[in-house]
């Protein structure tokens, strides 16, 4: 089949970017990586990109197709070529470009190292045999263990774009991999560290990382698990944590969110006082509902009672998110089953 591409070239010697057109013949089962190989072999040997395994496990070939990061070896070209679409291929975002589609991953690895990406054992010494860990315990971090360090999540992270010092989805997911591992003995220390500025509470919840991850790591969920674990351990001084706590308090007292009190509860009195001019603006438009009388939902006592039951049953922290994850993982399979039934 004929495959046409546009590739953003970057020549480091001249410091110039240029969008170039390519069209080659490729087999029907060709992936984007296969097409790049054909371009490099037969059209322009200077095209630079990384590759190795071609089976979505090494993580070398992360790049952007039409502005969104993908693994080139995972992206089949047949449907794209059939539809006559000409994709624009460029280097991943949020990282410096070395040449063409090759980015400098040093900032990525720096963030990874910052979270202490290795087991820090506790006092339990299993001696000359293995730690005993149930499958359910190991399950807590099975998604985080899938990460192949490809950088696709990092490429699209909206928080990272706005704050380059943000630890980022990959590093935080790796952090969760250890926080959730029963063999690690430094959970509290890790959670304290990840709860600092540029950590967990920087995440803007755009879900781009979750959407783009080619391995199903679900970094946003990993960050949520970290938040859950942090709060379970009482590490909740960050404004982000306070913000979250107020939602819980609202739900079990009035049902509906107690919006006006959200500001001082999150930011503290001092900062809230500084916000008064801004708040006045909103107040004039009726956007600051009076905290009294409270806007109480019907039958809110049920919500309160549910909270007590939940606390009794103790599925706290990350475990609360992990439950039902297999159900979420199965979505495509179940849909396929339905499709086949028809």
């Amino acid at each position, binding site marked *: 089949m004929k495959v046409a591409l546009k590739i953003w070239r970057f020549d480091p010697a001249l410091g110039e970017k240029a969008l170039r057109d390519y069209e080659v013949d490729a087999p029907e089962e060709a992936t984007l990586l296969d097409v790049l190989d054909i371009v490099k072999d037969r059209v322009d040997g200077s095209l630079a990109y990384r590759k190795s395994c071609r089976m979505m496990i090494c993580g070398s070939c992360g790049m952007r197709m039409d502005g*969104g990061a993908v693994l080139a070896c995972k992206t089949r070209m047949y449907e794209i070529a059939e539809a006559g679409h000409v994709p624009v291929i460029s280097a991943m975002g949020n990282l410096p470009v070395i040449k063409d589609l090759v980015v400098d991953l040093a900032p990525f690895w720096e963030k990874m190292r910052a979270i202490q990406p290795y087991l820090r054992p506790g006092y339990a010494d299993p001696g000359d045999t293995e730690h005993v860990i149930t499958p359910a315990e190991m399950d807590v971090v099975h998604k985080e263990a899938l990460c192949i360090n490809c950088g696709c999540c990092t490429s699209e992270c*909206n*928080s990272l774009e*706005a*704050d380059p010092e*943000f630890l980022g989805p990959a590093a935080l997911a790796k952090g969760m991999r250890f926080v959730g591992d029963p063999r690690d003995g430094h959970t509290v220390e890790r959670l304290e560290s990840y709860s600092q500025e540029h950590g967990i*509470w*920087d*995440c*803007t*919840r*755009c*879900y*781009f990382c979750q*959407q783009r991850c080619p391995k199903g790591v679900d970094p946003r969920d990993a960050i*949520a698990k970290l938040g*859950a674990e942090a*709060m379970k351990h009482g590490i909740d001084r960050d404004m*982000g*944590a306070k913000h979250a706590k107020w*939602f*819980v308090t609202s*739900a*079990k007292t009035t*049902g*509906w*969110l107690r*919006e006006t009190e*959200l*500001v001082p509860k*999150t*930011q503290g009195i001092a900062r809230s006082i500084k916000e008064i001019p*801004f708040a006045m*603006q*909103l107040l004039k*438009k*009726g*956007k600051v*509902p009076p905290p009294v009388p409270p*806007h109480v*939902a*019907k*039958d*809110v006592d*049920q*919500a309160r*009672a*549910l*909270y007590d*039951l*939940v606390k009794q049953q103790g599925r*706290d922290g990350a475990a*609360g*998110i992990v*439950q*039902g994850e297999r*159900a*979420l993982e*199965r*979505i495509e399979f179940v849909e396929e089953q339905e499709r086949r039934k028809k």
Partner: protein
Amino acid sequence: MNRVAYYKGCLASLSAKELDISTKALAPKLGLDLVELESVTCCGAGDIHEAEPDYYLHLNARILAFAEATGAETLMTICNVCTLNLRQANWQLRNDDALRARINTNLEAVGVPPYGGKVEVKHLLWLIAEGEGFELLKGVAHKGLKGLKIAPFYGCQILRPSKLLGFEDPDRPSSLERIIEACGGVPIDYPAKIKCCGFPIIQAREEVALAELIQPIEQAMEAGADAMVTPCPLCHLSLDAWQSKLEKATGRTLGMPILHLSQLIGVAAGFSDSELQFKRHVVPVTAVTEKLEV
């Protein structure tokens, strides 16, 4: 008439009351018979999902259970965040029998009917972007937007993660554009229309959030938009109420009117001021309304 359970969420109840008012005015014209759910709570947003995940499941299961109890097949939402939260909870409950059993036991213990998994959660946007809803929409928008240039802002949680939402292509959505066109407006395209408004961290990390928020507004302005429309009241709050902070932070004058989806259609349908409630917006919408008077 399509009878749907209606969950308006926290913002539409209070600070974004204009959204609830305009939705209720619009619904019957779009063939939607809204059965408002009252014995509900906040869906928890990303916050309860993170702080008390098991409680998040229970709260949403309760909303779904009461929706199911109305006999309606669809639970209609008008907020991106509520949509993702309810759909995620729905997915987990429907496909994990043990989980559903445990939660139903708890629901019943506090007087809530058990949830049988029969409700489908859909945002208003999805109900009117195609099919019968779209046909009715075309009829309703008779006054039209008179070629007004509208920049659609999707936000995050109506598109991603697409395997939970899945209504349209998360990278190249088009539902809002179709609606804008059906209302006689001209949709404006710009890259940041699917990026984050920053609302979840606008209090805890204001600088970061504003660095995100400036992008859609700036790009929409540069593309010549007269106004922006969004299906999410949280995005609306960022885009509208925080615009003054953006102006302060960037030193630029913005003044971009932000419309809720129901208001956009309402304008095209010739709604009155009391039905649109533009006076509740921080950034004046007069530029838009004036253009349409001609």
